[in-house]
């Protein structure tokens, strides 16, 4: 009896402790970050190594890096997921090979992605420190998440769809485009948002692929500083940069919350739509 009560008390206490620490972290960032946050902070260029001014170019660079990552990773991810779920048997050699190598890829530490991106994209392909290098490195990183969620979503579609459309003599391609992909859309979007969240949060893989330059990028071949790299640089390398680092951290967290809520609302929207688009 005493043991039972003790365990209850301890578990409630730990849950409150975790909630408390989270509230502390969030409150700390909001209290220090909110006073500096304004429209001009979001659009102005950083001045004096980031101590003054805003994060306009940093936000643009972050957006471009994410765009490159998503545009390259989504087609490959979708194609691989469709192949794994619709065109191979569960235990086929190709399926096992691809799944196995993706499992390994998802375990690779982000700093190793950074090393690879630096050696392959920046130096071997000659892209240098650029938004393109950073985006492509992130694309490799989020590929496993995209593929797994898309594969799960496709496998969760009712098998009746496949049987019915086969009975109607539809080709597999048509079944895929008109039935399976629309039905799996919530899962596809949820997976995309998971990947995007991971990419936004990434720092280590970007430091030596997309670089530190905090000017407004002219093209994808320019170096651009991501928001997370900006926070790192301000807090570690710039004395007196803490105020702006707090505000940038707040912007980063808000951005993540925004991505999350888009994922939720889109998923709801698609769930209420009829499945067939034609």
């Amino acid at each position, binding site marked *: 009896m005493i043991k039972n009560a003790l365990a209850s008390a301890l578990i409630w206490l730990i849950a409150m402790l975790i909630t408390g620490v989270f509230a502390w972290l969030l409150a700390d960032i909001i209290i220090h970050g909110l006073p500096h946050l304004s429209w001009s902070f979001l659009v102005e260029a950083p001045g004096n190594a980031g101590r003054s001014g805003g994060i306009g170019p940093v936000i643009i660079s972050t957006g471009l890096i994410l765009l490159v990552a998503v545009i390259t990773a989504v087609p490959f991810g979708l194609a691989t997921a469709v192949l794994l779920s619709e065109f191979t048997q569960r235990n086929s050699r190709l399926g096992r090979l691809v799944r196995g190598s993706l499992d390994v890829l998802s375990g690779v530490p982000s700093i190793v*992605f950074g090393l690879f991106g630096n050696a392959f994209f920046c130096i071997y392909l000659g892209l240098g420190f650029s938004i393109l290098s950073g985006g492509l490195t992130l694309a490799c990183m989020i590929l496993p998440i995209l593929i797994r969620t898309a594969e799960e979503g496709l496998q969760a579609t009712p098998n009746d769809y496949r049987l019915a459309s086969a009975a109607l003599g539809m080709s597999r391609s048509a079944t895929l485009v008109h039935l399976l992909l629309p039905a799996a859309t919530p899962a596809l979007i949820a997976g995309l948002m*998971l990947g995007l969240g991971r990419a936004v949060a990434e720092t280590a893989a970007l430091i030596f692929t997309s670089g530190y330059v905090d000017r407004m990028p002219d093209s994808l071949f320019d170096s651009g500083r991501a928001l997370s790299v900006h926070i790192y640089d301000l807090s570690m390398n710039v004395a007196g940069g803490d105020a702006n680092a707090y505000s940038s951290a707040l912007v980063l967290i808000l951005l993540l919350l925004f991505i999350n809520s888009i994922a939720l609302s889109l998923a709801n929207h698609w769930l209420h739509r009829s499945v067939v688009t034609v």
Partner: protein
Amino acid sequence: MFLLRTDRQLAFLLGSCALLSAAIVLLILLFLVKESWPVLQHVALMRFVTDASWHPVQGLYKLTPMLSATLYSTLGAILLATPLGIASALFSRYYAPPFLAGCYRRLVELLAGVPSVVYGFWGLTTLVPLIGRLHPPGVSLLTGILVLTLMILPTVALTVDAALAAVPVAYVRSAAALGLSRWSLISGVALPAARSGITAGILLAAGRAIGETMAVLMVAGNVVEQPHSIFDSVRTLTANIALEVAYATGDHRAALFVSGIALMTLVLVLVGIAECFPRKRYYD
């Protein structure tokens, strides 16, 4: 499998994409080896352990201080995060009322999404001064362990939660029908039934802790020395790479890629062991 011609073309296209995706891992390995080849050619592997110190410019490549920093900080974080994470999962599954449980699970998911650089920044501005008051300078193995604990806690909590959810309802109902107290139900039925899922979750979290760069880099002080107490400043393998790649050239750069290979091997062994435990897949 019978396929129409259009379908066969599509299958071919998809297959090429899939093979390309699968080839990324090989490409990564290939380039890690290619970049570290110059130093592997004339430096014996043992020298990464037996050299006097880490002075890569002078040709001294001792990696063990960084390796032990990585192992200590991971071990510390796992020791702290495992009980906390299990308790947190038990709370949302068996103790909290349904509404609170939903909110709490959402909170842990949010916690899992907070970027590592934000944890590091918060640790630097908040934890470091606190620990500095206890034992200056504050940037230390201990701070690194605490920040890492915060980072991997959600991973442990969410995987344990998923493992507990997969425990057959019949077990729980039978235990309740036998009149077991809540704690006996948990310790005697639920936790043992979820054991393999829990172990897999802990191993995954350990892999994450080893691979984590920014959070530890920002709070651990980055002095290359064998740590003797938890208040010593340390530099992990990941932090070492992040700090030095920018300016490293020649053999120095190659030595950093060697530590990258070491890191990848460590993590892959952990992930490989974790894969051996059957579990409900959880994607973070």
